[in-house]
């Protein structure tokens, strides 16, 4: 546990920093100088050969309209060293996987020949480093997966299935993490593990390298992690429907329970045509209709035979209804007694169970009983319904002839698009050059399948749910369930396989509310990136996914707001924070794009075509005067009425802006807080700034951080902000507890999230500040408290009451008591920065 929040905090007191980095699957730490600190788990060596300060600036900047951070790349060099040479030498021992290796397998790895390898040691497969404790002639055993990185699933027939005693010399795709550790003027590095004393300041993946440079070093170029989200995911797979033979997919254990009742006697048989030992691919047995009928009859006959010769249940016969299907009948065995009786049929398919009863007339053994075993369960009284195995007993199976695609590349579950209609499937297996899909829902009928023969089919991967869930699933999914986190649920290549440790999952829930909180949709990203599929929605809703410090010295993908308004700033940037040099001005201005006068939104989720694909909204009056300026976007909503409602709100927000969002770039020391998405307060007098609120030079007020970069050599940071164009709403917080009495509290507890707000108020108003108290529904502005100090107890924000205005009485029952800011006439300068009636600014 360090006593500083960030290594940069120590720089302002005369310390410096040392950079070091990790490359995924390479168990050596690369440092600028020997640190001698405890190495992270999985790493066995330290090499002081890193050259990183020649890189261009690092960091991320948000493009508000694209909804995604544009992280800057990192280039670094490694000098020749014994450690590096060992990694960049052709392997002396090499073999291949002989079976696919799951990401979670730790028992053994099957290979063609392990005899040349040491009996225990380290091997490399793909980008993964694996330790093993034993070998057989064709396997490695006792595996420790994902050493110095992550575990992956490996296919035996891929180039990545090569197993060697050294890593591949092509490091593309490996994750790079750059850290800064503090070091004082004497060269002292704080004690503790290397990661504990450092902050992660950049994260991305190797795009090229290592390659030899003219100055005899090895260079690697890496892309920021948020740029990975701009790379397209797997394309959809095309083919044609092959319905020359109709197949049904039956889940193992599906059964038909038939009960015959007469008088007080009951006979019952349980027919299971395919038991669990006959399970085929993905838990399904795939058969033709005739095979299914034969299997049912075989199982039926065995059951009836077991009842004995006196059984009243008899043979099963099938009757074909041309063009519709088949229907099962039973010939009774022994003569059924003449009294009125009944029989019942129960069909069980997984969790589905349906029973219906049919009265049974008096019959002789020569009469076929009119049992319709497989009628649609929705119409049990319609006895003439055809035998419909695909709606009741079995599930749909569709064969798709692929066009130039290896059937093994078809994900084991996903979507099937046929003639504009979307189906889902839950199993797949290769069938020559075709793929057979199982568990197709809604199950097409036999007649539908026949009609679909030769039709174009598209196999497509998609995610459904709220914006927060779809984002997290696409970011984390690896194709191996839950490998990268709880949101790793999508098939292979349908997500970016980024581990949850690199994702601020909570931010996606907390920031996704407001105007996009109720949105739910389907999204397919075939051959498209997350930026392509969701960037438009995020941009319109003024949200963005960006790589940023999560406040603990860890770079994480976070969902942040980009709107130029809000409250709860994290810092104040004043003139004294600006860095001036001979070459550069500490402040630069980007005048920003014109305020749009129209918004054009295309509806496309990659799955189905919206009936009216484009929604157009314009501010007619302003468009006539200021000219056309159109903001365009694509969003995944396909419900036109829903999309129209949202687009109207978003467009109104854009149209109402009084002027373009001009960006200010402020050159500051690295310890000044403000990550992309944060709010900061500005108190600047720089002549290039202008404050529309006061009509004076400089700017005082809140601003949204849209970017932050760092020069690794000079440590200078540039924070890019857009000034608020309207005050944020006043905070209001419920009282959770108090000390003293309800009428005379000495301290008041509120949610800890408000600590930053109240502590900054106290900081700016040393003499104390006032809050007013009211009960929603009985709103009054007359009562309040003067607060002297604000304390973070670790669980709540505690306000110490200095004096009481009026005669308030606190309560937590009903709507409870709420604290908010006083009316303008009583407020402090800090509080006046929030929205009050008569403030004069715009609602934003």
């Amino acid at each position: 546990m360090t006593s500083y929040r960030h290594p940069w905090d120590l720089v302002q007191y005369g310390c410096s920093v040392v950079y070091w980095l990790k490359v995924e699957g390479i168990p050596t730490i690369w440092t600028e100088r020997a640190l001698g600190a405890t190495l992270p788990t999985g790493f066995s060596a330290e090499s002081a050969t890193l050259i990183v300060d020649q890189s261009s600036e690092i960091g991320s900047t948000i493009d508000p309209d694209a909804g995604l951070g544009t992280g800057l790349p990192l280039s670094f060099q490694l000098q020749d060293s014994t450690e590096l040479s060992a990694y960049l030498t052709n392997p002396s021992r090499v073999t291949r996987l002989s079976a696919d290796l799951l990401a979670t397998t730790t028992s053994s790895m099957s290979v063609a020949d392990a005899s040349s390898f040491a009996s225990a040691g380290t091997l490399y497969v793909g980008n993964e480093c694996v330790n093993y404790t034993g070998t057989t002639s064709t396997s490695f055993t006792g595996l420790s997966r994902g050493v110095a990185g992550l575990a992956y699933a490996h296919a035996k027939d891929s180039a990545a299935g090569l197993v060697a005693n050294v890593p591949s010399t092509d490091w593309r795709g490996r994750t790079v993490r750059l850290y800064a550790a503090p070091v004082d003027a004497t060269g002292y590095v704080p004690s503790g593990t290397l990661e504990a004393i450092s902050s992660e300041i950049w994260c991305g993946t190797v795009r090229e390298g290592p390659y030899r440079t003219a100055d005899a070093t090895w260079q690697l170029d890496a892309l920021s992690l948020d740029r990975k989200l701009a790379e397209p995911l797997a394309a959809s797979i095309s083919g044609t429907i092959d319905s020359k033979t109709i197949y049904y997919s039956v889940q193992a254990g599906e059964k038909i329970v038939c009960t015959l009742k007469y008088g007080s006697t009951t006979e019952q048989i349980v027919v299971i045509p395919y038991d669990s030992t006959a399970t085929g691919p993905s838990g399904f047995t795939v058969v033709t209709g005739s095979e299914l009928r034969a299997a049912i009859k075989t199982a039926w006959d065995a059951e009836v035979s077991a009842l004995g010769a006196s059984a009243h249940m008899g043979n099963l016969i099938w009757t074909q209804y041309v063009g519709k299907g088949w229907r099962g009948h039973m010939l009774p065995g022994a003569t059924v007694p003449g009294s009125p009786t009944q029989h019942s049929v129960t069909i069980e398919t997984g969790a589905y169970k349906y029973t219906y009863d049919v009265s049974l007339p008096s019959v002789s053994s020569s009469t076929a009983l009119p049992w319709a075993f497989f009628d649609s369960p929705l119409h049990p009284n319609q006895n003439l319904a055809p035998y419909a195995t695909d709606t009741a007993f079995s599930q749909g199976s569709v064969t798709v002839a692929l066009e130039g695609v290896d059937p093994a590349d078809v994900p084991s579950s996903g979507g099937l698009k046929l003639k504009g209609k979307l189906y889902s499937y839950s199993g797949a297996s290769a069938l020559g050059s075709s793929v057979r899909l199982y568990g197709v829902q809604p199950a097409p009928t036999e007649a539908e399948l026949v009609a679909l023969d030769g039709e174009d089919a598209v196999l497509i991967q998609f995610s459904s749910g709220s914006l927060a869930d779809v984002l997290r699933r696409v970011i984390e999914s690896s194709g191996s369930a839950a490998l990268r986190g709880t949101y790793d649920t999508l098939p292979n290549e349908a997500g970016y396989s980024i581990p949850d440790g690199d994702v601020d999952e909570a931010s996606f829930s907390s920031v996704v509310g407001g105007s996009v909180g109720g949105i739910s949709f389907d999204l397919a990203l075939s051959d498209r990136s997350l930026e392509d599929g969701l960037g438009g929605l995020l941009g319109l809703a003024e949200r963005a996914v960006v790589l940023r410090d999560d406040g603990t010295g860890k770079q994480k993908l976070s969902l942040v707001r980009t709107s130029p308004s809000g409250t709860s700033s994290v810092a104040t940037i004043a003139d004294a924070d600006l860095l001036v040099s001979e070459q550069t001005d500490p402040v630069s201005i980007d005048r920003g794009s014109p305020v749009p006068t129209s918004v054009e939104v295309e509806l496309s989720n990659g799955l189905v075509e919206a009936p009216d694909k484009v929604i157009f909204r314009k501010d007619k009056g302003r468009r006539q005067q200021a000219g056309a300026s159109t903001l365009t976007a694509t969003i995944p909503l396909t419900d036109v009425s829903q999309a129209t409602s949202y687009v109207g709100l978003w467009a109104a927000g854009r149209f109402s802006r009084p002027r373009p969002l001009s960006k200010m770039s402020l050159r500051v020391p690295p310890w000044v807080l403000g990550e992309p998405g944060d709010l900061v307060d500005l108190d600047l007098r720089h002549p290039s700034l202008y404050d529309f609120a006061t009509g004076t030079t400089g700017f005082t007020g809140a601003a949204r951080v849209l970017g932050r970069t760092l020069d690794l050599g000079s440590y200078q940071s540039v924070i890019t902000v857009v000034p608020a164009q309207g005050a944020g709403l006043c905070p209001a917080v419920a009282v959770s507890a108090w000390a003293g009495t309800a009428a005379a509290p000495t301290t008041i507890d509120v949610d800890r999230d408000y600590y930053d707000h109240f502590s900054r108020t106290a900081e700016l108003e040393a003499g104390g500040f006032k809050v007013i108290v009211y009960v929603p529904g009985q709103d009054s502005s007359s009562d309040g408290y003067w607060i002297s100090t604000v304390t973070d107890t670790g669980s709540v924000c505690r306000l110490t009451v200095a004096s009481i205005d009026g005669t308030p009485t606190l309560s937590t029952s009903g709507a409870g008591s709420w604290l908010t800011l006083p009316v303008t006439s009583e407020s402090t300068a800090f509080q006046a920065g929030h929205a009050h009636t008569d403030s004069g600014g715009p609602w934003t």
Partner: protein
Amino acid sequence: MTISTPSTFPRVAQQDLLTARLTSEPLSTILSRTNYLWQHHQPPLVDIAWLVGASMTRAQVFEFGLEPSADSLSYSFTHRWWVGGTAGSMSIKVEEYAGSWSTIYGPTSTATSANAWHSRTHSATISASATRLRVTYDHGVDAFFPSHLLAIPAPTTTPSAKQPSGFVAFDDGLLGSSGAPLNTEMLNRAKASCAAVLTDRKSMVLSMAQDTFSAAQKGQVTSVGIFSGSPSMTVGRAVASLPGNKGTTDISLHLRGYTSASSSTGYQCVVRQVGATHSGSSVTFDLDGSWHVSSTLTVLGEQPDIEVVLLNPDTTGTETAVVESLIGYWTPGS
């Protein structure tokens, strides 16, 4: 401090949103809409056309399941009936069941004229814990025909305290002050209070109730629902109206039914959605004389086609299967 409830639905024009300056508007108007909603959102708690055969000459009693507001609201009841050839006096009594029966209206008598339609409107408060309602019509020995009952929420005031549903009224004491804070709670309150009212007041979207005057005559005032010697019979098929419901939603069902057989085993009622597009969901109730409640009938779309089927295992033609009352409630937005 004043809680004002507009008499007409206040509107906020688009330009008021586009060019709004930081004053109490449009937030004040938006919040006042929640007060309007409280008094004027009136989905039918009861909307039943009584299932009766012909003009009766005795008292008729109807009992059905109920899902009232959590806020113990006052409701406006409107009864409608036909009187035959003899003028007389109609007595109406309404009782609620919340662990025990209690009268919430009447019995109140009204003089009636012959060969004419009549109606009576009155208010009554239904407690949040009520699970059933019982309505008794008595026109003495004179023939009459009870037709319909409609009960809609009709609160006359907007309360200041937070209601069990979650509704919190808007009082202009704070926002009406000069320089008052425009705070997050007020903005959120507008949405939360609307959601509370909309989801608290359930709408009766499916209804059927037969006379329960005496045990011997349960449900037998009509031939509908009485059959025998058949495995199943469709009692009825109706379209429920769920405006705005794009996907699937659950309907909460309340049912009581009987059989004349000594054992109720196998005597059941199936309620399900049918039609070209349907959810595939169905609910099966035992016709054993007990009240059954199920919230698992999932329906698809704005106008689901609901079918009610009785299962009667008797083949002697003597035993009956009867649904006395079947009620379906929908929570808009659920």
